[in-house]
């Protein structure tokens, strides 16, 4: 469904994304992980049109959407959320979502109905009249989700939608994501909350320093030496030359990594 073809993104002398190729099939729930600054959000920006790649192509359902402005690719069903929430601050929650719904509904009435439905889906229906800029972080993330859902995406790119959430909110968000996936939306998730990623995603891609270093199932990724090295450094990865370190050592190392990232994201403001 989504084909990222040798995409490179250069900013002046810096290569934020180096020759990344990735495919996501329809119906997938995939994860994109990697240390901070690895280039994940940049990759999303390229896919969704916020950035034009220095090289490479992006194909969505067979169509070349490289460099397409976001409002065009939205029509095809390719949507995203932002890492730092961007609500329409002075508008109500309802109006925020209505704007998303408007790209699918011609009439404002139907758009409002759709918007209310989406707000209900994320549990914000009772706050429909509140002003967006007053929302706490967790609810802003939900609003972000409701908004993009209103555009009826077929593939959704979620950029750290759990960032800064507490454990219960994470659980709630995980369930919502599963639910959305169940409705037939393909999802790619950038996340640091490892337990969620491991349990939700069928396939995970790992990026470090702009390069794709591993792709596979959660188990594969957990044990992958290169992934461990990327997160924790050389010494923890063990010294076996192959892709798999000794099972036990890599297991504990991966668990430590998962816990470390969970702890840090939970304490994030």
């Amino acid at each position, binding site marked *: 469904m989504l084909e990222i073809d040798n995409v490179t993104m250069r900013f002046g002398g810096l290569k934020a994304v180096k020759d990344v190729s990735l495919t996501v099939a329809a119906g997938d729930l995939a994860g994109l992980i990697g240390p901070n600054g690895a280039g994940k959000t940049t990759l999303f920006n390229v896919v969704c049109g*916020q950035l034009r790649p220095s090289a490479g192509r992006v194909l969505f359902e067979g169509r070349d959407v490289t460099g397409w402005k976001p*409002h065009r690719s*939205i029509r095809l069903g390719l949507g995203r959320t932002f890492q730092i929430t961007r*609500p*329409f601050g002075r508008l109500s929650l309802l109006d925020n979502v209505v*704007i*998303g719904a408007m*790209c699918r509904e011609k009439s404002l009435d139907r758009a*409002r109905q759709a918007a209310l439905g989406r707000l209900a889906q994320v549990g914000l229906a009772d706050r429909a009249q*509140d002003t967006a800029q007053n929302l706490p972080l967790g609810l802003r993330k939900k609003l972000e989700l409701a908004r993009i859902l209103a555009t009826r995406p077929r593939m959704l790119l979620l950029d750290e939608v759990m960032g800064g959430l507490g454990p219960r909110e994470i659980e709630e968000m995980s369930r919502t994501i599963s639910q959305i996936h169940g409705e037939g939306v393909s999802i790619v998730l950038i996340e640091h909350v490892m337990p969620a990623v491991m349990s939700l995603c069928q396939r995970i891609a790992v990026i470090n320093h702009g390069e794709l270093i591993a792709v596979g199932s959660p188990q594969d990724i957990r044990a992958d030496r290169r992934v461990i090295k990327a997160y924790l450094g050389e010494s923890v990865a063990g010294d076996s030359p192959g892709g798999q370190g000794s099972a036990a050592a890599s297991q504990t190392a991966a668990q430590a990594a998962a816990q470390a990232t969970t702890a840090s994201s939970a304490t994030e403001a």
Partner: protein
Amino acid sequence: MTQAPRSQAPSHQAAPPLAADARTVRDPAAQAQTARDPAAGGGGGAPAGAPDAATPTAEGSSAAGSNDAAASAAAEPGGRLSAAAPAALGLAALLGLPALLEGSPFYLEILALVFLWGAMAGAWNIVSGYAGKFSLGHAAFFGLGAYASSILYARGGVSPWLGIPVGMALSVALAAFIGLVTLRLKGKYMALCTIAFVSLMEILAVHFRDLTGGSEGLMVPYEPGLANLTFANDHEKLVWAYVFAALALGVFLLCRRLERSPLGYRLAALREDEDAAEALGVNTLAVKLTSFGLSAALTSLGGSLYAQYMLWIEPQYVLSMELSTQFALFAIIGGVGSAVGPFLGAGLMFPLLTLSRSAFPGLPPGFNMLVYGLALIVAVLFFPKGLIALGPPLRRLARLIGRTGRARLGRRPAAGETAAGLNAAEGPAGSSHA
């Protein structure tokens, strides 16, 4: 104070996103179709559309707003009447005032110009208040309209009826060009760029004096007749007052319509966060250009009409930065981002200064602009929401007075009002049925 049910923003069309007042938007499922309430609709309270960081929900009135939203959807009889009152008043002013003032051309002209400047501030508001793209170059469109129709008429014998659309078309083209050029520029830098355009046009107007009359100005031929959009002396000012009143009404209604339309939502999205809007399917470029073009066309229309009214135009009047700032000033003082704000601002500032000029003839030149400048600073720093921020408190006061007044007078209930409804005005809150 007991809280009686009020007729609020009657339908889901109230408090549209351009007014950005979240408080009175209501659940469409609970709506009853009631009469359009222009007073409430005009922002339904301090429109957060006024680019102001202060959060509306922090105000006490927000609690009242959401209570009403939760209350019955039926209109309260007294409320419906008091809501219709401002609209009727406005219309009466438009129709009646000019005729009333016919005897004194001085006041008539002030009224006429209030309508014109209000309309121009309203047009400016479309791109600056609603879309959030602040322009300091609107005098370029005003002047372009003025010169286009005047040059075609004076030098080419083309009737202003044709010249005006030509001016509008040119202004739209210019607006599109400016919009594309300033595409990636953020707020203040875009404003800076628009200044460059106005200055450029002023220089060109002064330079090509064969065409434009240069800095001495251009005289518009006086050949009275409808075909030439010039009027004979006896009723001239009155007719023009009505013409400008019509323009003002047109701009006002257009803005109200815009606020409630899909385009209005998109403009609000563009204003709040352009990238997020784009990522939600809003074609920000198209929306930007559309609003700019619309704003430019209306401003150009005003400029052409002004030229026909004054029969004389000069670059320093119609193509000056001061004029641009004036449009902005009136809108800001009245309330940016609302349909009625620009008219309030024009209605307050322009007569105030013109009348004080005549009251104190010794005032030196530059006094008006000095006051405008100071007013702008004070308004923007201390009253960023503008005069309409006075709306909710005043309206509540008015309702309070109206209700107790009517009850005391023992007025007979009008059709549709029940005794219960009338009594409810004095008693504790309860639902009323129309």
